């Protein structure tokens, strides 16, 4: 067997051996104002009370790349491709430095938004879906994706109750509208349309985010108890072996 094949076989064996002790990854997805963060916090508290070790990873939070994105957003300096690619870099960096290490150690990871956020928002910005899938490949599949579904009206009402939507959040870079809220209403409709399509393609567990909070929380607990798990050897082999190989290069590779 050639050296490369032997090395790959060794990596695969490592991934398979880890399957039973690794942690679960649960992604919370949905448009702004759907109540994902509230539900994620409630669920985290419950998981901890049940004795799980829990780690949260939020969208656009890599300590290395987030400051770059923040500064460019403030200056309204991002085109759709740059917006997409910087968020994808932030995601990949967190996947390699936060999410995978925690899962490997057996911790449960709650992702407050995952790569589907990038796919939905960037598709809504008019970028080609096949290219986007490529940007985020190798895809890393969560064990469970909880999709908090709300109508564009509800999302806009909840956002407007607190604050004015920000420039990119409102999609003003693509709608060209001066009024942030009017732009948000227009843009969030596109984002939700993309999310609905993703929910079908990627088999999200859809939660009606217009139901009372406790009902939603109970559904999440039920889904967790049902124990959905995507075996890494079948779903995530490429992404995990790439990470292991990069850890071999440097213990902090991201």
């Amino acid at each position, binding site marked *: 067997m050639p050296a490369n094949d032997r090395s790959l076989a060794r990596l695969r064996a490592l991934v398979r051996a880890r399957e039973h002790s690794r942690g679960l990854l649960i992604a919370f997805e949905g448009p702004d104002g759907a109540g994902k963060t509230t539900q994620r916090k409630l669920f985290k508290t419950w998981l901890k009370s049940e004795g799980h070790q829990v780690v949260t990873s939020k969208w656009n939070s890599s300590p*290395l*790349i987030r*400051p*770059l994105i923040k*500064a460019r957003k403030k200056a309204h300096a991002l*085109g759709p*491709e*740059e917006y997409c*690619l*910087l968020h*994808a*870099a932030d995601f*990949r*960096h967190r996947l*390699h430095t936060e999410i995978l290490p925690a899962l490997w150690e057996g911790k449960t990871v709650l992702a407050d938004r995952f790569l589907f956020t990038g796919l939905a928002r960037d598709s809504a910005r008019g970028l080609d879906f096949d*290219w986007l899938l*490529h*940007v985020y*490949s190798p895809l890393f599949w969560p064990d469970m994706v909880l999709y908090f579904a709300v109508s564009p009206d509800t999302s806009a009402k909840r956002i407007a109750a607190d604050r004015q939507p920000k420039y990119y959040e409102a999609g003003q870079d693509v709608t060209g509208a001066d009024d942030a809220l009017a732009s948000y209403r227009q843009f969030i409709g596109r984002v939700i349309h993309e999310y609905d399509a993703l929910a079908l393609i990627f088999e999200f567990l859809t939660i009606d985010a217009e139901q009372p909070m406790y009902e939603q929380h109970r559904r999440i607990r039920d889904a967790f108890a049902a124990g959905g798990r995507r075996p890494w050897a079948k779903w995530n082999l490429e992404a995990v072996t*790439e*990470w292991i*190989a*990069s850890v071999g*290069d*440097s213990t*902090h*590779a*991201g």
Partner: protein
Amino acid sequence: MPAEAGRGRLIAVEAARGRDAERGAAKVRAALRSKRHNIRGGISHWDASGTFYELRLSRRNAVVLSARTLLLLYASDLAFRLRWEIRPALAEGQIAIAAPYIETAIAFGEAAGLSRKWIAELLRFAPRADICLHVKDAKAGAGWKRRPMDGFPEFAAAALRGKTPGKGSPRREHAVEALNRLKRGSQCDDLRQKSLGRLLRALRDGRPSRPSQGR
């Protein structure tokens, strides 16, 4: 004489070392501006967006990133260069010299273990260069210098390990080899005075240049 409006041309200068790309681009621009050719052209440099500079500024020597993350950042910088430098110059009928462009990133990515197909697809938003010039590496056996801001290969090599790989680094040899393959496959010309003169005459006369950068 500037080229006609809307008839700009894109020249890619690819090299395994950042300084070689810079020197090569300066040489091309000087040749373009010479009395003989008198063509206007500007250079689009790596990290025009300041992404890599800011990363380095924030973490000094502690920037550690995977090859895939580095390529995503390179792509975002290239998207910036295309939006603010390259496309506007082409739209005005000027010559845009992109140093480096696509093949340097592909060569480095391949050397770091990523698939050529993934990198080429990632960078597919970038138009093909009309002319691709390759700066021959005079020190193919040497490592990358410890100057991460010299160019993308140096920055990426440092960020992959948290330090610059030394002499005889396999990655560097692989990257040089990947760029040499371009030349052998006739996708890129060596940047030599003779070939440069021929290509610039073709540009000036509006003759089609041969296809470059087969991806």
